[in-house]
């Protein structure tokens, strides 16, 4: 049912931009890491960020929920409009931003506590008043992990396999139902079978969430991303500054790239 809606929806209504990210300049100290990248992220879609290593795609992702504020020397020029507010606006608390924009990391990083407590973590953090057990179950179901762990919710999250840990982290992130999920190479530490499961999960999750996905794996982008943003590195100024080369529907980026650089990258001429 929802699959047909998914196909029909874009044709009827223009896609709604949930996060309008205009990244003019991102600095670490005096190092210009990213410049001139305008990345709109559309609702209920997966936006893939691809590009060679060092092109700043993770930096871009981590600046969207202000995770980079934790890095010393981080400076940001531009804006990230989210729900009608600038994430970098005056008086905005980065801690609150991160509660609305969830994150899944490269390495599975469950807390050293039970599976249940891992998923309940965000609910308790936000003093959720309802039935925590129901929400934990729903989140684990949403992350396609419930059937595997329903008998052992009290077991430590660290006892799970890598792929299960990553799905636990996804369950933890969606338990509070954030608006957007940022995923920073979520499959790079997983084996092919676990990778496939997480990819299927991402496609399933976009019905309810908006996803921004950094991946070093172009095939992964073609498999799951609706929109793809290609970043590259500019070394003309003597440093390595990442920038957005082009962005568009995934099929267009891979089949009819506008830029020669994109074409060279996706045909494997550099990486």
């Amino acid at each position, binding site marked *: 049912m929802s699959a047909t809606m998914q196909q029909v929806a874009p044709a009827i209504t223009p896609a709604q931009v949930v996060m309008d990210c205009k990244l003019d300049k991102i600095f670490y100290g005096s190092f210009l890491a990213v410049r001139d990248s305008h990345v709109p992220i559309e609702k209920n879609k997966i936006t893939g960020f691809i590009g060679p290593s060092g092109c700043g795609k993770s930096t871009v992702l981590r600046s969207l*929920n202000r*995770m980079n504020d*934790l890095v010393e020397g981080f400076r940001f020029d531009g804006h990230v409009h989210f729900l009608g507010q600038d994430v970098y606006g005056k008086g905005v608390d980065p*801690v*609150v*931003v*991160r*509660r609305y924009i*969830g*994150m899944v*990391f490269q*390495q599975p*990083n*469950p*807390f*050293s*506590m039970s599976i249940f407590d891992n998923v309940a*973590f*965000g609910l308790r*953090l*936000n003093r959720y008043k309802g039935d925590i057990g129901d929400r934990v179950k729903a989140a684990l179901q949403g992350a396609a992990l419930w059937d595997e762990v329903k008998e052992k919710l009290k077991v*430590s999250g*660290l*006892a799970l396999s890598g792929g299960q840990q990553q799905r636990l*982290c996804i369950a*933890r*992130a969606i338990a*509070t139902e954030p608006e957007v999920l940022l995923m920073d190479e979520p499959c790079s530490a997983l084996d092919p079978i676990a990778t496939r499961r997480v990819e299927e999960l991402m496609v399933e999750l976009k019905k309810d969430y908006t996803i921004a996905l950094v991946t070093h794996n172009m095939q992964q982008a073609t498999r799951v991303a609706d929109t793809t943003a290609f970043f590259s590195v500019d070394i003309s100024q003597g440093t390595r500054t990442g920038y957005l080369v082009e962005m568009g529907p995934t099929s267009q980026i891979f089949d009819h790239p506008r830029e020669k650089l994109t074409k060279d990258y996706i045909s494997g001429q550099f990486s």
Partner: protein
Amino acid sequence: MSNLSSVLSAVPSLQRKLEGRALRSILLSALVWISALVASVPLFSVLYMLIMRGGSRLSLEVFTELPPAGFEMGGGFGNALVGTFVMVGIAAAIAIPVGIMAAVFLAELGPSSKLANTARFAAKTLTGLPSILAGVFAYAMVVLTTGTYSAPAGGVALAVLMLPIVVLTAEEAMKMVPKIMKDAAYGMGCTRSQVVWKVVLPTGMPAILTGVMLAVARAAGETAPLLFTALFSNYWIFHEGQLEVMSPTASLAVLIYNFSGMPFDNQLELAWAASLVLVMIVLVVNVVSRIVGKPKF
């Protein structure tokens, strides 16, 4: 590649030969084996000697009765046992909270700040402090200001010895918490103090408890800092219907020190028995710390 034939003979013998490298390897292995054995000899020989000489004197009586006077027979060290527990308890109540909070600062808030470097240096120096100086410190701070030898004075002296152990082991324990786990907490929308309270402290807790236990064990066995802070007493701390905290207090360590120099067989036997009890307490605390400190995975 052409040089290879000149280095390795054409028809190799793959048999092990007892010469050169192989022999050195065996000798070195033997050396470290023996060294490991030597390192474990003192504990077990002390334990053996204590059981032999103090074991026979152990009875319910020694735990419940007061120390005997000169030519008196029987008696025990019940008050010293209680005194040790009370003073180690006071020390723990001071050193554990202060030590863990200081460690939070060192590991999480300002790891490379000037204050952190100073505190770390102070803690490391303090671990090497002769324990009698902790007694001098507590004598000046507590005994002189309150005008009496007392359990709190002994507790403060022991706390000075415990504090650096707690600070340094707790800092290490918190540093062991993986950065990706802290990132996860920040990513969920934790403030810095929530990251510390909800993730760093619980995750590091087993290792922190190990450090705490080691500090408790060390404090329980200390004699010198108690000699002129708590002194000794032949009476219960709970004496004639009231708790006499602000008066000289007995401890196992000082009882052993006092009795072992006496010319009476009864007191000497009690000193051996008290030593056995004290070593058993330290041993139990260490074993417990190993159990709680065992990583779950």
